[in-house]
């Protein structure tokens, strides 16, 4: 006789699966997308103005006490290949292989309105704080690198060569803002290609520039209408971009307006809303185990109590 009744088992699997499935079937538990903080600040970078002088890269190093990255230049001059464990800001050059199309691109944290990295971090080493700035506190960071896994822009970097490595990313120079100064990068930019300000002002300015020169600016893909990258992408970002080449060529991903952490957290909240499901499941499991054991004891006529389990 096969001791397993398939139907019973299917029921069992369905019962355990149901807990996971509630996350999908209960839209009532869906999470509310975060709104732009009223005091949100940010950067606006416009590729049409940038001349690739990299003054901002140097200024960022000085503002954040980061040594020049001379690994690529054989120890001669600062030449970071990308953002890395000692570089929070980098100017990259995009060049099209078969057309004269080219553009500079400034990479730094975009300070998402609803940041995936903050949702990921286990005990809040990364947090969205005053002015909506996404800050990092190494006191709570175990170096798990989940933030790196989830950032859609590949921003957080890790000090791989250190023995007590930290995460490194732009914190919008919040230590300078506190002193009433502006970020290092915007302060030195000779062309005002990158400017600092309140997000709503920056957004209005960006839209004004597009309206003034609709031919000059591009959208996500070639042929798309011009847009301000970061207005809605991935739930919106506080650092915004304008570009004269399609954003996808600059490496900015095509994100919908749904916040990046939306699906995962809806599922997570659905399952763990108020911890009701786990507690209920525990109570049910406990009761069933208890009852089944009692039944067995009764059936066997044993008298030594509801004894041991690991047999």
């Amino acid at each position, binding site marked *: 006789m096969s001791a397993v009744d398939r139907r019973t088992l299917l029921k069992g699997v369905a019962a355990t699966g149901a807990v996971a*499935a509630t996350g999908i079937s209960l839209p009532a538990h869906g999470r509310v997308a975060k709104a732009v903080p009223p005091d949100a600040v940010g950067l606006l970078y416009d590729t049409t103005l940038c001349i690739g002088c990299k003054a901002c890269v140097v200024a960022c190093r000085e503002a954040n006490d980061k040594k020049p990255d001379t690994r690529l230049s054989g120890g001669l001059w600062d030449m970071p290949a990308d953002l890395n464990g000692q570089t929070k800001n980098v100017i990259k050059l995009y060049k099209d292989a078969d057309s004269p199309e080219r553009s500079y691109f400034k990479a730094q944290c975009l300070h998402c309105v609803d940041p995936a990295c903050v949702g*990921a971090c286990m005990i*809040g080493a990364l947090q969205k704080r005053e002015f909506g700035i996404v800050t990092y506190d190494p006191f709570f960071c175990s170096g798990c690198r989940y933030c790196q896994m989830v950032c859609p822009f590949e921003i957080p970097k890790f000090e*791989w060569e250190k023995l007590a490595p930290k995460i490194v990313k732009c914190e919008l120079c919040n230590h300078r803002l506190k002193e009433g100064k502006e970020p290092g990068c915007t302060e030195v930019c000779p062309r005002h290609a990158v400017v600092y300000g309140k997000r709503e002002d920056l957004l209005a300015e960006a839209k004004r520039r597009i309206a003034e020169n609709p031919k000059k600016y591009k959208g996500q893909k070639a042929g798309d209408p011009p847009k301000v990258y970061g207005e809605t992408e991935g739930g919106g970002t506080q650092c915004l971009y304008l570009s004269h080449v399609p954003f996808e060529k600059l490496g900015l991903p095509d994100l919908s307006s749904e916040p990046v952490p939306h*699906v995962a957290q809806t599922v*997570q909240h659905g399952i763990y809303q108020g911890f009701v499901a786990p507690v209920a499941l525990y109570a049910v499991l406990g009761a069933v185990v208890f009852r089944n054991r009692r039944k067995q004891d009764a059936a066997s006529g044993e008298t030594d109590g509801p004894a041991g389990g690991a*047999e």
Partner: protein
Amino acid sequence: MSRYAHLHAPVGGPLWSRPFRILVVVFVFCALFFVYRFAAGLGASTALNDGYPWGIWIAFDVVVGTALGCGGYAVALLVYILNKGTYHPLVRPALLTSALGYTMASIAIHFDVGRPWLLYRIPLFPAHWNFNSALFEVALCVMTYVAVLWLELSPAFMEKWSQGPAGFLRRTSEKAAPIVDKAMPWLIALGLLLPTMHQSSLGTVMLLTGQKLHPLWNTPLLPLLFLVSCLGMGYAVVVFESALSSGILGRRRETPMLASLAGVMVPVLAVFTLVRFVDLGLRGRLGLLGTFDLYTGMFVLETVLFLAPAFMLLSPKARNDAGNLFRASMIMILAGSVYRLDAYIVAFRPGDRFSYFPSFAELMVTLGVVALEVILYVVIVKYFPILSAPGAEAPARTARA
């Protein structure tokens, strides 16, 4: 005294057999890389990078490793919830593999994170707990589950110690045994709840990577798929391990019992594949399978690996064939492992400028962790009553299920 004490017996015999000595040598060699990892840092010892911050230490040691440690969960689910008492003799060995698997995963985490000493801030700062983070939930659950597993297994140790020489171990065992006994139903329930939570959350963890995870893997049903796959792997490990111990350690073959266990794997495997395809279909992603690339290749491979054991175990006759059973469970383990490695590494696409293949040191650390697990397994089954006693039968009263 536990009521099924007579069902289990230590294997006994000399410990330092030849395979065991080889195992220890392998472990000692790998342990050099444990040291190297901490002396040289992650950058020098691993192939990890800013694009692929997670490699095999997470994907294999933790994500696959804990699923392989789901034998205890899978069998306990049958025995205690569906009340299939027939499986009793299998619970203890399954619990041991689970306890070791989860313990090893916890050790592996310490190699992987950059600042392992700060992991201990997690339990200390409840005000900072981020309940939005699936990884946090996994961390907390796994920490607790390791403790629960060893407690669930503790009667096996206490049985032995309470018959040993008078002393600390004997006194403690005699005192603790009745307490553990009383708490057992609630421990068992916790042992069922925690894996349900964190095995599904291991799926949610990758859901947060959004577009970076290939659409064939990225679905809101990831938690369900991870849960179902860990059950399949759990059963397979029990079958595999039992067949192995009867082969190597000369224990009585448990084929009839394993055969019915294998019957359980069939619907589990079918559910997994069905859910996957229905989900892809409903969300209009089946068309992705039309292009041939690495991703569709891996997806097809996974599907074949999941369905093959289901077909191999379809008939009761095939399930009673020990060799067939062993092969099917090996494929099942492979299927779940490939699925998990794909979801964590292969289908994760941080961009063309990054690539990852594990470094030698990474592989050695993983091998070392596995070797340690096997060493501990052998030592424990030799000295403690874990495996079913030769000649012991499942008690008649429980066979009614």
